[in-house]
C-alpha cells in the first residue's frame, strides 16, 4: 500500500494540459498533407500512389479537377513520396461537423500530355487554412447539448468493423496522460447510459444491425462521432460485398474525426468540437 502511494508521488502528474497547450506531436508525425496547388504540374503520379482514393483527379472539358478528401486520407505519405508538390504536415486536429469541410478541390486548365496548366480555381477545406464556420444546425445543436447535457458527457464506443487501431487510441484517452475524465467525460458500458456514440470502422455488413440497434438504444438527444478514415468514409476498405463504407451510410453523423487512427489529441479535439467545448477557430 505504502509502495503504491510512494510510486504515485514519485511519478507526479503526467497529464497533458491540452487543449490549453498545443498538441504534443512529434515533428516526424504525419498529419494533413499540404499541396502547393500553384506549383503543381501533374496530379496523376500522386493519385496513383494513394491507396484509399483520398486523392483523386478527373479530366473533362479541357479541365482537370483534383480532390483531396481528408475523410479518406490515412496520412500514409505515399503521395508526398511520389510528388514534391505535396508535403506532410503534422497537423492532427482535423475534426469537422460537415463532411464537405474535409474536402479540397482544385481546378486546372488541362495542359499538353496530361500535365496541368493554369490553376483556375480552388475550393479549400476550411481545415487547411481558416477556421470552420458553424452552420446553423451546428449552432442549434450546440445550444441544445449545452442545455440538456450541461458539462458532462457519457460516451459509448462502438466498433462497427474497425481493425482495432482506433480502439488503441481511444483507450489511450483513459490513460493518465490524456485523462478524458478531467472534462467530465467518461466512457460507459451501455448505449442506454450514453449521450454520444463514438463509432469506428467501416460498417461491416455483419455489424450494420448491431449499430442501428445501439443507435436506437441511445436516448435522445444523442451525438454520433465517426472516428478514423474508415468511420468517415470506409477508408482503405471502402465499399465492398462485406463493408458498407462510412458510419453515415447507416446512422446520421454529427462530427467526423479523420486519421488512421486519429491520435488521442485528435480524438479529444473531435469530441470537444462535438460538444462545443472548444473555441471555434
Amino acid at each position, binding site marked *: 500500500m505504502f509502495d503504491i502511494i510512494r510510486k504515485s508521488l514519485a511519478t507526479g502528474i503526467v497529464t497533458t494540459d491540452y487543449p490549453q497547450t498545443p498538441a504534443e506531436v512529434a515533428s516526424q508525425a504525419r498529419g494533413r498533407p499540404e499541396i502547393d496547388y500553384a506549383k503543381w504540374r501533374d496530379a496523376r503520379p500522386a493519385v496513383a500512389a494513394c491507396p484509399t482514393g483520398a486523392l483523386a483527379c478527373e479530366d473533362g472539358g479541357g479541365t482537370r479537377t483534383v480532390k483531396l478528401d481528408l475523410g479518406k486520407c490515412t496520412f500514409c505519405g505515399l503521395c508526398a513520396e511520389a510528388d514534391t508538390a505535396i508535403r506532410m504536415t503534422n497537423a492532427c486536429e482535423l475534426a469537422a461537423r460537415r463532411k464537405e469541410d474535409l474536402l479540397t478541390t482544385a481546378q486546372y486548365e488541362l495542359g499538353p500530355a496530361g500535365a496541368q496548366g493554369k490553376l483556375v480555381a480552388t475550393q479549400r477545406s476550411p481545415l487547411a487554412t481558416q477556421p470552420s464556420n458553424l452552420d446553423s444546425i451546428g449552432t442549434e445543436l450546440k445550444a441544445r447539448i449545452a442545455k440538456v447535457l450541461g458539462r458532462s458527457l457519457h460516451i459509448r464506443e462502438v466498433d462497427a468493423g474497425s481493425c*482495432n487501431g482506433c480502439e488503441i487510441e481511444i483507450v489511450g484517452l483513459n490513460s493518465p496522460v490524456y485523462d478524458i475524465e478531467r472534462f467530465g467525460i467518461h466512457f460507459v458500458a451501455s448505449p442506454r447510459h450514453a449521450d454520444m456514440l463514438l463509432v469506428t470502422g467501416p460498417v461491416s455488413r455483419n455489424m450494420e444491425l*448491431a449499430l442501428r440497434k445501439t443507435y436506437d438504444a441511445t436516448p435522445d438527444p444523442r451525438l454520433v462521432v465517426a472516428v478514423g478514415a474508415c468511420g468517415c468514409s470506409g477508408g482503405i476498405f471502402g465499399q465492398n460485398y462485406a463493408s458498407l463504407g462510412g458510419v453515415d451510410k447507416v446512422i446520421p453523423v454529427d462530427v467526423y474525426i479523420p486519421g488512421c487512427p486519429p491520435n488521442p489529441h485528435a480524438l479529444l479535439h473531435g469530441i470537444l468540437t462535438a460538444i462545443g467545448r472548444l473555441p471555434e477557430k
Partner: protein
Amino acid sequence: MNILPALQPILEDLTERFDTRIQAVEAPRPNEVYFHAQMELVPGFCAQLYKKWNGRLVSLFADDARVQDGAFHIHYVFAIDAAHGFFILRVPVSPAQPEFISLTNALPAVNWQEREIQDMFGLKLEGHPNPRRCALHDDWPEVYPLRKDFDLHTVLPPFTGERHKFREVEGEGVFQVPVGPVHAGIIEPGHFLFSVAGEPVLYLQIRLFYTHKGTEKLFENMPVTHGVRLAESISGDSSFAHATAFCHAVERAANVEAPPRARALRTVCLELERVYNHIADIGAIATDVAFVVANTHAMRLKERVLRLNEQLTGHRLLRGMAALGGVLFDWGAGQIEAIRQCVAWLRPEFESLVGLIRESSSTRDRLETTGILKPQTARDLGVVGIAGRASGFDHDLRRDFPHAAYDRVNFTVPVYQEGDVLHRMQVRIDEVQQALSIIEQLIAKLPEGATRVDVPTPPANRVALGYVEGWRGEIFHWIRTAADGRLARCKIKDPSLQNWPALSEAILGNIIPDFPVVNKSFNLSYSGTDR
C-alpha cells in the same frame, strides 16, 4: 533441388513412403517445399508429418485456380520447427465435385479454417463433425466471395438478423448468458454465449466474423504497393507485423532480400510493437482484477513507447514504415539516441510496474490457476504465440525460422507449463525484458547501407509464404501472383484464428466474472480473425 540439409531426411521419408502418389515436388525456396498430390493422400501425408516429424499444421487454405489449372487447390502448410522448414501439400478439388476431406476429427486445430474454406469457396466438407457456417453468418445468401467469378463490389441484401441456432445446454439451474457483439469495454465486436450452472461456466460458444470486411478479396483488387498499407489494417495492434509478413511474402516471390540495415530496423519495430502491446496487456490484466493503479502506470509506459514510435516512423502504431524491399524511413543519430534513452528509461519503470503487481497478493490470487489451458489441449488445438508458450508449447518463429534480423541477436524464448492467466502474463513480462535487450543489441551495431531495395514485379503464378512472429504469435501471408503485377490470392493467417477455440477450453469451470481477465490474457484479435 536446393533445400535446407535438415529437411532432406524428411523429404526422403515422405517420397519413399508415398512414392508415386506424389505427383511433383518443388522447392521455390530452401525452406519452402511444395508437394502436389491428390486428395486421397491428405490424411496419410498429414498424419506422417504431424506424428513422425512433429509438424504443426499452421495454415490451411484454398485458392481458386480454375482458370489456369481447371481446379481449386487446397494447401496444407506444415511447419517443422526443429528442421526450420515448411512442407506444403497442394491438392486439387475438381469444380465438378467440389468436396474435400475434413481433418478436424484427427486434428481439432483446423476446425475453423476448414469451415472458412467451405464458406468462402463453396467447397463442401466431408466428415466434419460440425460443418455449419463459420466465416459467413447464417443470413448470408449462397455466395462464395473468394471465388474468382465473385465480384468484390457485389451488393448483398442487408443483414436482417441473427439466424444462428446456438447450441443449447440444458439441466436444472442451467442458464445461458449472451454477451455482444457490442461489448461493455472499448474492444472489438464478437458474441459470447455462456452456459452456466450457478457460477461455473459449463460451455462457452464463441461467434465471430462480425468485422469481416472482405480483406483477402481486396488484396486481389489493388496494386501490391497498396497491399502493404492494407496489411497494416488487418489487425491494428499488429500493423507492423502484418505489413512485414506481407512484404516478406512479396520479396520471397520476387527472390529479393531486404538489405541488412532494413532487416535490423524491421526487427526494432517488431520488438517495439511487442513491447507496447505486452505492457498494455499486463496493465489490462491488472485492471480486470481491480488493480487499477497498475494499469495507470502501464498506460503511462505504453504512451512513452507510442511517442517513440511516432518519432521513428511518423506514426504511433508504426504505420507507413513497412515497404516492399525494406523500410520507408532511415533513422538518424538523434532517433537512435531517442531509442536508447527510451529503453534506458523503460527498463527500471517496467521492473517497478512488475514489482507492484508481484507484491499484490490479492492480484496474484486472482491470476494463479485461473483460466488454465492444459498443455495437451494447447497441442491439440495448435495454440500459438504467448498462449502456446504459457502452456508448454515451445515454438517461436523468431528462433525456429529466423526472419528480419533475429539471427543476429541473442534472446531466449520463455516457456511455462502452468497455462494459467498468471503465466500468460509472465510470458509477456519475460518477453518485454527480452525485447528491450534485442533492441539494445541491434542499435549498438546497426549495419550501414541502404534501407530499401527495388522489388521487381514477380511473374504470374509465383507462390510464396511470408512469416513474422508478431507479439501475439505467428503471422503467415501466403501469396500467388497474378499476371498484371497484382495478386491472385493473399491468404492471411493471424494467430488469433488459431487461438480463439482455446479460450472456450480455458474458461471451463471458471466463473463469468473471471472471463474478462481470462479473455484479456489471450488478447486475441477479432479483426485479424474476421478479416
